[in-house]
């Protein structure tokens, strides 16, 4: 169905179910309990999961399929955000024009950068994209200040024209971003016993787009075009010797993933109408590489998992402070408590980078295929037991190539 085979369609259904149930799944601990600190089911973070999921899915189309490692994808994210905010300033606070413009602008931008950078491959390509992204960052940060508002970031104000929409909302403020009247910030809170689940319009908007983005990427993975991209990754030289020009294919992949990044940038701006230059910084580009590697390069689900993993650490672990630690360890004897807290506080709060860095190292060393490989190993452990019962001589049959969806 939907042009997918049964296995893929089942997979898509699982993804849809997980995405729709996210507000419940991410809120496993009751309100007010000590563990409530680890709940992630609040709108801002859920939106980030979906948005950075889109970003990583798009990045994976380039990196996972063609093997071209771009270190400059944040530039497209930033370009998308700026275009969207300009649409909010000039047209209306409806998110649709912003998203459309962002995809077009980032696509054109990717075409330009890709056309130049793809003349080289390997490390030279990475360095070129990094250089372009850093140039864009510096342009946004200081040179193009009239367009980008520099370090402060581009914000919507009461004086913006907004020719198609309201200039000032009824309450005298800047109108909120909306989808034909449905405010992105509006939430529906559902208390169930000790739990409280927040269903946020903005999150579901991002989630639906993320599912569409995921579906599109799944189709690309399965298409002849996807196969060609994989061939480029396997052996580009051989492909060239057969008389095929691989450049249009890599360029297309580059532009598509740039558009994904632009879409993610536009959604970031739609959820929170601000575009800052630091979105284009090389650390932001590096982050999406980390997400993809952490989750599993070339798999469908991996980048999304990686994105969720990093955003979770950034937002949850960075909020644990000394006071919270004191609450947790108050049962320890005084001297010991202070020692434990002294050690622990380097790994939480502003030290969250340390924790996520350690975990990243562990994953890369022990699970080179990323979190997805971890999942596959666990699944295999259960499967092997079953296989033993069948007494099938599995070892002597050619192995089935792993399903990319897993």
């Amino acid at each position, binding site marked *: 169905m939907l042009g997918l085979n049964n296995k893929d369609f089942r997979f898509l259904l699982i993804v849809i179910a997980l995405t729709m149930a996210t507000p419940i799944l991410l809120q496993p601990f009751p309100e007010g309990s000590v563990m409530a600190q680890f709940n992630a089911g609040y709108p801002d973070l859920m939106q980030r999961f979906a948005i950075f999921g889109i970003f990583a899915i798009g990045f994976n189309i380039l990196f996972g399929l063609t093997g071209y490692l771009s270190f400059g994808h944040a530039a497209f994210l930033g370009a998308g955000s700026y275009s969207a905010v300009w649409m909010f300033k000039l047209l209306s606070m409806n998110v649709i024009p912003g998203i459309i413009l962002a995809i077009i602008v980032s696509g054109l931008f990717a075409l330009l950068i890709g056309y130049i950078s793809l003349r080289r491959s390997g490390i030279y390509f990475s360095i070129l994209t990094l250089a372009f992204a850093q140039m864009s960052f510096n342009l946004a940060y200081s040179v193009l200040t009239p367009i980008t508002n520099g370090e402060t970031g581009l914000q919507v104000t009461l004086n913006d024209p907004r020719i198609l929409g309201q200039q000032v909302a009824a309450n005298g403020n800047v109108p909120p971003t909306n989808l034909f009247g449905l405010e992105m910030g509006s*939430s529906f809170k559902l208390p169930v016993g000790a739990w409280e689940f927040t269903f946020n319009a903005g999150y579901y908007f991002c989630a639906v787009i993320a599912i569409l983005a995921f579906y599109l990427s799944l189709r690309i993975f399965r298409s002849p075009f996807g196969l060609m991209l994989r061939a480029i990754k396997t052996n580009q030289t051989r492909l060239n010797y057969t008389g095929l020009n691989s450049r249009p294919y890599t360029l297309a992949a580059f532009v598509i993933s740039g558009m994904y990044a632009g879409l993610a940038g536009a959604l970031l701006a739609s959820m929170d109408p601000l575009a800052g230059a630091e979105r284009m910084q090389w650390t932001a580009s590096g982050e999406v590489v980390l997400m993809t590697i952490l989750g599993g390069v070339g798999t469908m689900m991996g980048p999304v998992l990686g994105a969720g993993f990093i955003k979770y650490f950034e937002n949850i672990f960075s909020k644990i402070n000394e006071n919270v630690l004191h609450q947790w360890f108050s049962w320890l004897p005084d001297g010991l408590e202070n020692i434990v807290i002294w050690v622990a506080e380097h790994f939480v709060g502003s030290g969250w980078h340390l924790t996520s860095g350690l975990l990243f190292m562990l994953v890369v060393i022990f699970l080179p295929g990323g979190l997805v490989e971890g999942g596959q190993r666990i699944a295999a452990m259960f499967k092997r037991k079953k296989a033993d019962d069948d007494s099938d001589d599995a070892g002597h049959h050619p192995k089935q190539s792993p399903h990319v969806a897993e």
Partner: protein
Amino acid sequence: MSNSNLTRRGVLKSGAVAGAGVALPTIFTASSAAAYTNEPTGGTVTLGFNVPQSGPYADEGADELRAYQLAVEHLNGEGDAGMMNTFSSKALKGNGILGKKVEFVTGDTQTKSDAARASAKSMIEKDGAVMITGGSSSGVAVAVQGLCQEAGVIFMAGLTHSNDTTGKDKKANGFRHFFNAYMSGAALAPVLAARYGADRKAYHLTADYTWGWTQEESIVAATEALGWETVNTVKTPLAATDFSSYITPILQTDADVLVLNHYGGNMVNSLTNAVQFGLREKQVNGRNFEIVVPLFSRLMARGAGENIKGILGSTNWHWSLTDAGSAAFVKSFGTKYGFPPSQAAHTTYCQTLLYADACERAGTFNPCGVAEALEGFEFDGLGNGKTLYRADDHQCFKDVLVVKGKDNPTSEFDLLEVVEITPVDQVTYDPNHPMFAGGALGECNAG
């Protein structure tokens, strides 16, 4: 595509799935029944302290956090109550705010607008914070202030010195106790002219963001009005750590004063570079080359060490002030942490007390009620003498200190000496002053 058999059944099924997916979000349009965002319903009220714990302003952020914790203790009736004893308003009783125990959550702004907004959002959405305060960078303060306006909570700005915070980017839900770049210029320029002469040539190095720009604009305007000439103004990136390449061109010009519109780690590095290149020993037209740091703080002075001696600047507050409020604050801060507070700590402590006091006087946490209680509020006893929270732009008006790096410091904290206390009248400006024009407060938003 590999598998695209269009059948009637397939199309129908696909259509149904897609339709259900699109329709889903429209179910969730109801908003909550509370009167305003995060109305505290239990026995506690949560405040959000959003400070830089990493990046160039991390030192200031750490000190702000200490002051916040101290303020929370005092509000909850623990400790020696600090400036609550000297504060002219007596609404606070030491039983929390409106009888609710004060709790707090912290976050790291990373000195980036994006990260700061994400952190503030999680405080509002996840932790139910009813007020956000902090920020050690004007860019961040402006961004978070905008967010608080949209979300319908009060923003009590921390260390933000840019004119824009209460100028073109002012918001009805945002309040600033700290002084601003215009005030620095107005207070500093006469002292500079008196000490260094009225015919100096100034060269500006400026941190490239909202604060730097307005600081530069203010100092240039104030000094040029007194006869100075501005040779050049150069923007430096906020993330820069080595300023040598910006210092060397100064040696080629005939400038005889260097104005460093830098703050925090930036200023420590640029001043150190300037001293290394021998600018302080330099003679131009028979006069000593001088360096000016318009916004000074003790933390910066400590970072810059020896280099700070004799350098003029302005500051919001200094712990050596002897009025009752300052003394009480220095005492309780010193007792808890073992060293005197910085101006960043002072302003954030004051902001927390002012917010709590406004809630008590308004009898509600509703941002609109609190804003009304703060607007036009006159108070004393918080270390800066008589102070007014002006209703037109939510800016505090108070005396400004002109300070100098001490030549013979007696301790590692005794680094600045107060040269002059500029009276409030000299630094007051019209709300429609061109440097502050172009913005509007809007209406208060309760969410």
